[in-house]
C-alpha cells in the first residue's frame, strides 16, 4: 500500500462528500439494475438501496446503504442511517435472492442505524437482529463490501458475508470514533485519539481476521479517481463469486457460519474458577 495515512485521515476520506456511494458502485459494476422498493409492511426507507441487476450477465441481488448526494437526499435518507423498515426491505430482498438462487452483493456505507424515536418504536434492535440471523443462514453466495463508513450494528446487518472485502480507506468499527470517545472517555472531542486505538482501518481488520481482502485506492482517495477502484473491485468480485459458486448451497451456509463462529476466538483467555 503506497499511502501512509493516519486512521483519522482515513476516517475523513471514508466520509468524504464526493466518495463513491452504493448507487455509483451499482452504476459502474452492474447492468440492468432494477430497484426494488418498500418493506411490504408500511413504507420504503430510501437509506437502503436494493434490487436485482446483472453482474457480467449473471443475475444478482444488490443491497447497500445510500447516503444521497444532495441535501434533500441526505435528509430523506438520514445520511445513510437506516430505520427498521430499511432492514426489513433488505430482509425481503435477501429472501428473494434465496428463492431465486441469486448471489447477494452488499455495499456498506453508514454511520450506523438511525437513532430516532420512531426507529426505536418500530423495533430497530429486532430489525437488525433478524437481518443478521437471516443473512447468516442463506444458502446463496454472499459478498459484503465495506465501501465507506462501516458503523456499528447498522453496518454489520449487511455484513454477514462468505467474503467481506473493504476499500483501502474505508473504516469499520463498533461505533463512530466520536461515539466511542463519548462513551469511554465522556469526551467526543477525543475522536482522533479514538481512531488510533480502535483498529478500524482495512489493514487492522485484515490482521484481526474480520475482513478477507482490501481493494486498493489511489493516494488521494477513491473519489479522486474512481475508475481504477471500480476495476479492482470488479475483478475481486468476479474472483470471489467464481470461487463461492463452486460450493453447494449447504456448504455456503456452513462456510459462512464457520467464518463468523471463529470471530474473536483469539480473544479468549482462561481464569480458574
Amino acid at each position: 500500500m503506497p499511502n501512509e495515512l493516519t486512521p483519522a485521515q482515513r476516517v475523513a476520506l471514508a466520509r468524504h462528500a464526493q466518495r463513491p456511494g452504493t448507487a455509483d458502485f451499482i452504476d459502474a459494476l452492474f447492468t440492468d439494475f432494477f430497484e426494488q422498493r418498500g418493506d411490504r409492511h408500511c413504507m420504503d426507507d430510501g437509506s437502503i438501496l436494493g434490487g436485482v441487476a446483472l453482474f457480467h450477465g449473471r443475475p444478482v441481488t444488490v443491497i447497500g446503504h445510500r447516503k444521497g448526494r444532495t441535501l434533500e437526499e441526505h435528509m430523506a435518507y438520514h445520511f445513510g442511517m437506516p430505520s427498521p423498515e430499511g432492514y426489513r426491505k433488505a430482509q425481503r430482498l435477501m429472501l428473494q435472492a434465496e428463492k431465486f438462487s441469486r448471489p447477494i452483493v452488499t455495499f456498506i456505507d453508514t454511520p450506523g442505524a438511525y437513532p430516532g424515536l420512531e426507529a426505536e418504536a418500530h423495533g430497530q434492535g429486532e430489525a437488525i437482529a433478524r437481518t443478521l440471523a437471516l443473512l447468516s443462514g442463506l444458502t446463496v453466495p454472499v459478498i459484503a463490501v465495506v465501501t465507506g463508513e462501516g458503523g456499528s450494528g447498522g453496518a454489520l446487518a449487511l455484513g454477514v458475508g462468505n467474503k467481506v472485502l473493504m476499500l483501502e480507506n474505508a473504516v469499520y468499527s463498533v461505533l463512530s470514533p466520536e461515539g466511542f470517545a463519548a462513551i469511554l472517555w465522556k469526551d467526543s472531542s477525543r475522536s482522533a485519539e479514538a481512531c488510533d486505538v480502535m483498529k478500524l482501518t482495512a489493514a487492522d481488520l485484515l490482521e484481526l481476521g474480520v475482513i478477507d481482502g482490501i481493494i486498493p485506492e489511489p493516494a488521494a482517495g477513491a473519489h479522486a479517481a474512481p475508475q481504477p477502484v471500480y476495476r479492482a473491485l470488479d475483478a475481486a468480485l468476479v474472483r470471489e463469486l467464481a470461487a463461492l459458486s463452486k460450493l453447494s448451497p449447504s456448504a455456503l451456509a456452513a462456510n459462512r457460519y464457520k467464518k463468523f463462529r471463529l470471530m474473536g476466538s483469539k480473544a479468549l483467555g482462561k481464569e480458574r474458577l
Partner: protein
Amino acid sequence: MSNVFAQRRQKLLSLKALRGASPTPAHTEETCPACGGTIRRRDLAAGRYVCPLCGHHYPIGAYYRLSLVLDKGTFRELDGSLTSNDPLSFPGYAAKLDAARRRTGMNEGVVTATGRIGGQKAAVGVLDSRFFMGSMSAALGEKVTRLVEYADKNKLPLILFSASGGARMQEGILSLMQMAKTAAALERFSQKGGLYISVLTHPTTGGVTASFASLGDIMLAEPGALIGFAGPRVIEQTIGEKLPEGFQSAEYLLEHGFLDAIVPRPQLRDTLIRLLKLHGKGGSDHAK
C-alpha cells in the same frame, strides 16, 4: 497472591449462589430508587428484590437469578473459566478486567449453565450488569454461542436473561462481530426446531438488543425494564427534543408489539415452567 483471594471469593460466591442466599447483607434499610419509600433489606430479599411498596424491580446478579429460576441443586455451570484476553491490547483494559473479576467474583458478564426448571432440563444463560455493564465481549459472545450449541446438541430448550449496556468498547470490532456470531448460532438452533425463550431485564440495550436478545420464539420482560437499541441520550440529541415518559420501557415495547408478556419476577419461574410444558418435553422437534 491477590489472585488466591480472588479465587476464594469466587468459590464462596458460587457456593452462596447454590444455597440461594441473597447477595447483599440483610441488616440495613434501603430507599427505593423508584418510589423513595423506606424498605427493610430483609423484606427486599424475601420479595426477590422487588420493592414491596411500588413493585420496582432491582437489578440482580446472575447467580442469584439462577437460584430463583432453577430447581434446587440442579445448577451446573458451563465454561465458567472463560474470559477475555484483551485482544486489542487496549490501554487500561487489562487492569479494569482484573478489578471487575475481583469485585464480582465472575470471569465474564454472563453465567451459562444447565439445570432443571420444574423438572425440565434446560440451558440457561444470565447476563450480569455488574460486570462491565453486561457488555458484549468476545468471551461473552463465545459463552452465549457455546450455550446455544450445547442446547442444540443436547436438544434442550434455551433460556437467556439479557441485561447489557451494549458493546464492550475495549474490544472494538471483535465485540461487534459477536452480534453476528450469536445470531447465526440462534438461527441454526431455530432451524432445527429448538425453543428459545428470551427474557429482557433492566437494562437491555445496544448490540445485545440488536442480536440474541431480540431473537426469542417467546419474548418476555421484567416490569419497567429499559429496552432499546440506541440510548435515550443519543436519541434526544438526534431529534432535538425530550423523549416521552415511559419511552423504551418494557410496557412501551409490549404496546408496540415486541414482547409476548411482561412477567413480574415472583411469577417468572412458574411462567417458564408453563412455557416449557407448552412446548413439549425437549422444546425441540428432534426430541420428539
